[in-house]
């Protein structure tokens, strides 16, 4: 009997090793995973390169090293290539490490504690600055700051400048113009406008969307809006980006940029647009918990829906979807109208959550080398090419008009920003009290979708959560 037992265990072990073998093989084979492998390889290469470079330049007089902790995994390889090229040209060692998506704060927290800490990192706004202020160097004397076209975008305290935005992004409702044109060509349409550009307020948007939803079969779509994704960690489009609009209008009325408590005077407007999203979607509103942002973008890319709320960074996801049927020239932005009076003059939500900071706790040589590197990135031809192609809209005066992003959504954002008849909505969500606040707002929105609670619960959560989380942050 004992022998049998040993047999069983051994065969289990054998099967497990077989399974493991299969596992690693399929990682190499599967196309989807190939990219990750490549990134890892590239990272290793870059590390090797950096090591080589180190050996070459240990004798060089400069001494300063650069260590950049990158926030955007989608451009990790490009940053590494750029860093390698800089090392080649100047001899300064540049190390680029990329935090996995959604883990930047964690990675930064552990990396900063090491002796070989990042010299260059990024924070997400005033709230991020509060938590990292001990590590932020005053950058007011640098060219990097002077190049900034709109100095008010930087994070300042007193006379000091501690965070400099390096990319500006915009979000709104992305629509597929070919579906919209198909709708406006219908004879029995219920509205009297004939193009999407005539949608100037929530009322028009609502009548168009609801009419389209009722004619979805004729239009060959499954719903007007892509799924309102509520999978864990995938609800930021609603609890952060969409929640920005009522806060933006409230702060504008009050003339403030932050507050310890809010009245949520525009709660009805928030409900307007949210209801429109969940009631005119390709997914039933009780099944939203299974959807991710990627699912929504794929639905849009495959032409199953006409609209999706997202930002200019979403183009990569749309164009990268297998079987993408959306043409670049059909992808356009519409501002998020919520029924606020005078919203005809509202533009896209434009701002940034990416501020570069130089670590104040590393050696002066490292700080100098870091500033030199970052100034090179945003002024040399090679660096500027990278920035316009990979980062998007860069807010520095070193860039000429020709050096603008070429992807359709980036172009749309630039167009909206340049339209002087429209006012861009600023990103006030950088003042949202904490991640916990956002998470809990997301939970209450999901409960609302599922019919577990009514809209009042969302409003209460929004207001009370804001006040209590702000208070908790204040007691620190």
């Amino acid at each position: 009997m004992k022998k049998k037992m040993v047999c069983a265990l051994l065969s289990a072990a054998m099967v497990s090793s077989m399974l493991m073998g299969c596992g690693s093989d399929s990682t190499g084979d599967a196309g989807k995973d190939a990219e990750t492998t490549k990134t890892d390889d590239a990272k290793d290469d870059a590390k090797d390169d950096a090591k080589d470079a180190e050996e070459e330049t240990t004798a060089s007089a400069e001494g300063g090293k650069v260590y950049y902790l990158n926030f955007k995994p989608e451009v990790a390889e490009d940053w590494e290539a750029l860093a390698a090229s800089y090392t080649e040209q100047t001899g300064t060692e540049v190390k680029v490490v990329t935090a996995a998506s959604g883990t930047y704060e964690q990675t930064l927290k552990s990396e900063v504690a090491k002796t070989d800490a990042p010299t260059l990192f990024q924070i997400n706004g005033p709230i991020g600055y509060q938590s990292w202020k001990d590590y932020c160097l005053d950058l007011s004397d640098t060219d990097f700051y002077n190049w900034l076209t709109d100095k008010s975008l930087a994070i300042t305290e007193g006379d000091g400048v501690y965070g400099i935005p390096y990319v500006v992004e915009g979000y709104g409702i992305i629509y597929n113009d070919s579906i919209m044109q198909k709708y406006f060509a219908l004879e029995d349409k219920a509205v009297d406008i004939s193009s999407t550009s005539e949608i100037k307020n929530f009322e028009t948007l609502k009548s168009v969307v609801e009419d389209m939803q009722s004619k979805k079969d004729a239009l060959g779509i499954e719903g007007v809006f892509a799924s309102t994704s509520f999978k864990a960690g995938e609800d930021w489009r609603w609890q952060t980006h969409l929640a920005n609009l009522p806060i933006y209008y409230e702060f504008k009325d009050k003339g403030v940029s932050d507050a310890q408590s809010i009245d949520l005077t525009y709660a009805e407007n928030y409900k307007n647009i949210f209801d429109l999203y969940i009631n005119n979607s390709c997914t039933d509103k009780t099944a939203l918990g299974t959807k991710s942002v990627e699912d929504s973008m794929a639905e849009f890319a495959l032409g199953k829906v006409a609209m999706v709320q997202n930002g200019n960074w979403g183009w990569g996801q749309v164009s990268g979807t297998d079987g993408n049927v959306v043409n670049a020239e059909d992808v356009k932005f519409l501002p998020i109208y919520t029924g606020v009076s005078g919203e005809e003059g509202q533009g896209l939500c434009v701002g940034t959550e990416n501020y570069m900071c130089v670590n104040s706790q590393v050696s002066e040589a490292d700080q100098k080398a870091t500033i030199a590197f970052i100034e090179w990135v945003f002024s040399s031809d090679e660096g500027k090419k990278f920035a316009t192609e990979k980062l998007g809209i860069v807010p520095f005066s070193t860039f000429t008009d020709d050096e603008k992003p070429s992807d359709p959504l980036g172009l749309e954002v630039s167009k909206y920003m340049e339209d002087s008849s429209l006012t861009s909505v600023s990103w006030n969500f950088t003042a949202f009290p904490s991640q916990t606040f956002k998470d809990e707002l997301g939970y209450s929105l999901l409960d609302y979708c599922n019919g577990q609670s009514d809209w009042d619960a969302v409003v209460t959560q929004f207001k009370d959560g804001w006040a209590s989380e702000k208070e908790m942050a204040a007691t620190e």
Partner: protein
Amino acid sequence: MQKALKKYFPIFALPTVLAFIVGFIAPFLMGIYLSFCKFRTVTNATFNGFENYSKAFANQDFLNALVFTVKFTVVSVVTINVLSFLLALLLTKGIKGTNVFRTVFFMPNLIGGIVLGYIWQLIINGVLLKFVGQDIYYNANYGFWGLIVLMNWQQIGYMMIIYVAGIQNVPGELIEAAKIDGASPWQILKSVTIPMVMSSVTICIFLTLTNSFKLFDQNLALTAGLPARKTAMLALDIYNTFYGRIGWEGVGQAKAVVFFIIVAVISLTQLVATRSKEVEN
């Protein structure tokens, strides 16, 4: 020989002791220290006494998570042990294909928790959406039973192997003697087999108890606490506290220390309690 062993003991033990200190003792002590500190990164901590602990206990999420974890642990310890013991009994009866079955039942244990969580999320959502029209995030009960199913599926095979080994070690002559005395199969099980496998029971209950209490990966992957933290277990709550608010790292650490004490107390009590029921072969 004895003498030589004693003499060289420190040298032989050194690598392991070093690894143990670096990998366990040092972080553990540092963790306890940090739970009394306000810190951003582990190197810039400032002492702030019991503030973290008072915040941790004032935090309703922590208590909710504790209640959920206890409920989950009770149900999963019972179901896993009962089912795996029954399977072990079945697979020691000498039925055809015993080895194949043992391997098959053991295999889920070889898959990582995160992967399992996602797989079961797909399965459960597929079933729920088709027959109820809701997903696992709709109701905290779905998440609770989803976790129970997942844990059972993963752990039963492993516990079964331990029980199988225990049952096979029951001396044949004892069972034979019981049979001659006219004991029914139920009596044999109750009065001979179970007392003889109490050492396996100790191990299995210890493993399932601590595994269930410390559950993190499966929880994160299956529900991530949705809806509204109602399915968040202690480990996940600690993680959320640590990263959810600026300046709350210390509170997360304090919760982790409390968590350690709870797990240690419960598992030691259980060890003592079941040990006392073990009989010598």
